[in-house]
């Protein structure tokens, strides 16, 4: 399982942004899959299906799906069903989340929809409204409102 751990700063077009990916994935161009970056002033509408990691700092409406990892920034606004391997959320998601690995919700995150994930971590302050399913167990935990 990829750990969203190391910060790597990269320069492109005289601007800098951060990759939250493991060093192994960043090191070898041969192994690096295509990655998508949705900036703060960009809006994506429709059925987005990616093959690599996705970083969202802007707006997405529709569907957001990848077999790799998703990082939702603090200023991001997603009105879509989201599916990924490991998902880190610091922004707003209105839609269902299906996470095959680990879902991380930071204190600034806000989720409105059903969540199905193997592993969940949630910081104090995270907002969640919907049904929650964690792990391979079929037991469901109803969380109507938590502030």
């Amino acid at each position, binding site marked *: 399982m990829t750990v969203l751990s190391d910060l790597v700063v*990269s*320069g*492109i*077009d*005289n*601007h*800098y*942004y951060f990759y939250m990916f493991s060093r192994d994935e960043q090191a070898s*161009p*041969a192994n690096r899959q*295509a*990655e*998508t*970056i*949705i*900036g*703060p*002033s*960009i*809006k*994506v*509408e*429709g*059925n*987005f*299906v*990616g*093959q*690599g990691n996705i970083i969202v*700092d*802007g*707006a997405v409406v*529709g569907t957001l799906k990848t077999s790799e990892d998703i990082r939702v920034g603090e200023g991001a606004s997603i009105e879509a069903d989201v599916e990924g391997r490991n998902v880190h959320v610091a922004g707003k998601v209105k839609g269902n989340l299906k996470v095959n690995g680990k879902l991380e919700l930071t204190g600034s995150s806000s989720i409105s929809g059903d969540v199905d994930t193997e592993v969940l971590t949630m910081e104090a302050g995270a907002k969640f409204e919907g049904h929650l399913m964690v792990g391979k167990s079929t037991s469901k935990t109803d969380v109507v409102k938590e502030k």
Partner: protein
Amino acid sequence: MFFYLYDKVTQDKKLEGVLTQVEHRLIDLGINGRVEKMSVFKNMRELIEDAIKRDAHTVVAVGNDATFSKALSAVAPYPAVSLGFIPMTDGTVFGRLLGIPSGPAACDLLSKRLMVQADLGRIQKTFFITSAEISTHSSVSVQCDGLYSISALKPETPIRIDNIGPVLTQGIGRLARADDGLLEVVLTPPSGQGRFSRKVGEAPSVFPVMRAKITANESLSVSVDGEVVAKTPCEVEIIPKAVKLIVGKDRLLR
């Protein structure tokens, strides 16, 4: 058969000695062939197509970056034909990308025929290995792979569609792979002014795609390497492994 296309730059008196050395080296290596010199009355695409019809299996652009770029677009419709390059001066971008030195040393690499197959982007009849740029306008929208659309909330956001990247207009910086079967739609919102009068930039947005349709409320220019090749609405697509390029072992292209 080898076909050598001499661009107008080879007619510069200062390069006469270099050209003579190149021609002698080609003969020594046994890879000399048919030669055509560009002039005002000759069209590069027609010359290359004519040579290919006469069984040229390798086209060699002799000149500078513009020579190689135009020859690439002419050779691309013929996947069985290889494309080589002899830079006449030092410092060419494609020479560095392909790992090909200038002058007679390039001939030795031609004879070794170390090749890579590179993807090309296509807009109508123009093929490109670098990047296509759309003139900025607030109404530009890009539909990707028929699945989703991208729009910029900030006006005048420049949009590029990269194969390996804008190496001729912006230099060799971050290079995308030339064999991944993907283009990248890159949107770089304009910088604003920070509180202390420093320019504050937003990171570029990047979308890997196989096909992109560009639309706008007005007819906008789409250029490749500084030359306008199409107007919106238009479609840009990736042609995987479209061309065989003769390269050196010190190439940057992957």
